[in-house]
């Protein structure tokens, strides 16, 4: 079990070296140096980019500063996806550090939602947790919690407090009695450059005959193309938290340990280019 705990810690403390660069479009009083940060994978952009924002505002005139948004290789980054997912989806195979352009104007209204305060992030985060618990426990666990427990979850994430977060999150990850798993596994499968945002289906952790489902079983069910046949070279890369877990890994265990703080298993499936 100590190994499991280490896995939780590694997942929580996963970092991505990022280089923020001010967009050329922005008008500055002097040259803006790039700003480097190690971004926590499990967090959201809005929670961890205050320093970068301050850094860039120093060189800009006050009236030019609008709502900040990020772009990677021409692609606006959605603030409501965890950072780790965004990286896996868009930049997993590029050279580090992750180069992100910072914008303060020309907000891409069509692609991004506005996010003026952290309250919006909190609302999104809590709604994800509630949805996940609805799948896992018919919302029983989350509904039995008090308001302050909800707050503790959010504050744990916001302040990067592993113990604080997991003291509450532990209850959400417990399986009821002898059923050996959740009702359904909360998961979302993402693909870069896809019209649909993600795939989400009802999938039980155990097969009808009581055998535990593995990651491979899930992919077979919802994204068969990702499972390589025996002789073929694998066409897709299945990434969770920047790693490719073995397809035999039990899905229940994965959900318990490799879920993001919003209790979802965000799986990124990237097409491997041949060259």
């Amino acid at each position, binding site marked *: 079990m100590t190994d*499991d705990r280490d896995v939780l810690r590694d997942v929580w403390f*996963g970092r991505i070296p990022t280089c923020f660069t001010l967009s050329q479009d922005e008008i500055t009083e002097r040259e803006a140096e790039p700003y*480097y940060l*190690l971004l926590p994978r499990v967090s959201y952009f809005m929670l961890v980019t205050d320093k970068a924002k301050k850094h860039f505002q120093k060189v800009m005139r006050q009236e030019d500063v609008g709502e900040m948004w990020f772009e990677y290789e021409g692609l606006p980054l959605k603030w409501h996806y965890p950072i780790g997912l965004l990286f896996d989806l868009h930049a997993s195979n590029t050279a580090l*550090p992750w180069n992100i352009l910072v914008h303060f104007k020309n907000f891409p209204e069509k692609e991004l939602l506005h996010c003026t305060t952290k309250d919006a992030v909190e609302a999104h985060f809590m709604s994800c947790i509630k949805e996940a618990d609805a799948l896992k426990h018919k919302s029983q666990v989350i509904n039995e919690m008090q308001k302050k427990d909800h707050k503790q979850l959010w504050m744990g994430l916001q302040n990067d407090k592993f113990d604080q977060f997991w003291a509450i999150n532990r209850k959400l990850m417990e399986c009821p009695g002898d059923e050996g798993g959740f009702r359904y596994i909360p998961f979302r499968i993402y693909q870069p450059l896809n019209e649909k945002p993600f795939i989400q289906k009802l999938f039980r952790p155990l097969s009808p005959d009581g055998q535990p489902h593995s990651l491979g079983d899930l992919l077979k069910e919802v994204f068969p193309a990702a499972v390589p046949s025996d002789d073929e070279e694998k066409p897709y890369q299945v990434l969770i938290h920047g*790693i490719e*877990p073995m397809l035999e*890994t039990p899905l229940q265990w994965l959900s318990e340990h490799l879920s993001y703080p919003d209790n979802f298993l965000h799986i990124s499936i990237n097409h491997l280019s041949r060259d």
Partner: protein
Amino acid sequence: MASGGSGSVAAECKRNIARKLRIRDRHQSHRYSAVITRYNQLLERANVLRQWRDVCNPSSVPSSPSDVSDLQVRHQEKVTAIHRQNGQLAEDFISLRKKLEEKEPELELTQGRMAKLEHQREWLDVERRKLSQRVLTLEQVNRSVREEYEGLRGRCWDWDQQLRALEMENAEIIRDLMELKARAARAQNHRIEEPQRVQQCCLQKDLAVFSNTPVCIDTDEEKESHPPIDVADELKMRTNRDKLFRSASVSLPRSSNFLQNIKQLFVRRRGSSSVSEVSDPIRICVSATVPTISKQCLEVHDGEVNAVQFSPNSNLLATGGSDRTIKLWDMVRGTLQNPKALVGSNDGITSLEFDPLGSMILAGSYDNSARLWSLDTYELKHTLSGHSGKVTAAKFKSYLRQVVTGSYDGTLRIWDLHKEACVSSIAVNSRCSDVICSDYFIVSGHMDKKIRFWDCRTQTISNEIHLQEKVTSLDMSGDRTQLLSLSRDDLLRVMDMRMNNVRKELRAEGFKCGTDWTKAIFSPDGNYVVSGSIDGVLYIWNVDTEKLETSLVGEHRATVNAISWSPSGDYVVSVDRAKRATLWTDF
């Protein structure tokens, strides 16, 4: 087996994941963390340095020779400006110094003056201390003098008591003496007449003899002989009376000599020449103090309070009200205490008077009578009834044997206390509001706006004074030379008793006489007069200046009916229509 296999597979998977996570971290974060931290530090330091540079060198660093020359010019300008400023400052400095030098002597002068003033202040301080010390000693002296005065007053009172007793005794003796003299005179007359009588007898006999001689008209002669005898008798009687009178008048000078001697004794002692003064109560108030504050205010009667009077030694106060009682209050440490009620009147009290010894109190009443209480036993001693209207004033006449009353029935009556009967009645045909009396005269105030002066012996009007309005009150000053009247025209008049005319008229703004029986009085030293107004304010006038001395606003909420000034001169008590009495004093 299958489950064991799957278990091992699961464990393998977990291990695999853990390993991959570690590899990921090694590749992604560990490799960069140090670099990024360092970079951020450097960035921060660069920022700090930039700020420093901005602070130290706000203007952009000159880069061309023209800039340098510009800078030089600018610096040169600055230097000249500073030089100019320097010169200005030097000038200022010099002028200021000059001013300072000018001020120096002034300062010295001021200091000198200050020193002088300081000196003067010290001197004055010393003087002040000396004076305050003197005030202290004077106060002490004053206190001791006052104590002495009190003692003397006490002794004076005692002496006065003795004097009165002696006077009474003296009067008795004189009366007895007169009687004896009269008897002696009668006896002597009788004796003197004896030979005459004998002679007459002889004459009568002779006459009888002569008359008997004619025989013809014997019986008629006898009858007619009586009237001549009667005539003779009458003649004889008259001569007798003449002799009696003469002998009495002859004997008088001797007794009056004796009287005179005694009187002169008192006259010398008291420095007064008035004969009537002898019967006066002690009037030893040197100077009355004008009260300034209300010291005590209480409800004394259940209803209107009509009369108030201090006892001759000022230690007792009597109040009379429409609740039919007289209340006697002890004056203890300047306050009224321990009221005692005298009952017996069948209706409200109108006036009060103490006898000069303070052993009796006389009260007039609405029930048409006057009553006398003894203050030794608090018992009703006499009831003087006979008036057919309310008795408005009852006053002691001389030697306590007689009382004079005035009434609404339009008569004045003189009562003898020994006989407990009315000895004479004077009909005026006008309601009497107040009466004062002395041995030889009575003064009465009336509703027909007249003040009448009566001769006691003849019981005729000796003088009349017409006023503009009804007379409500009369009072006489302690030395019996001035008469004070109050009338409904809100005027107080001070009259000279010797001239029988109005000398002074006193009035005041706001003063208004409230009722037909509102009283005004003299202060015991005769220097002030005081009366109460309809609105409960006391007005005190100075008789000499004829000006209002002060007006006192106290807790009276109704017309002030009567006022009494203590014979010691320290206290004034006023009573009003709404149950209250107020004690005024000046400390």
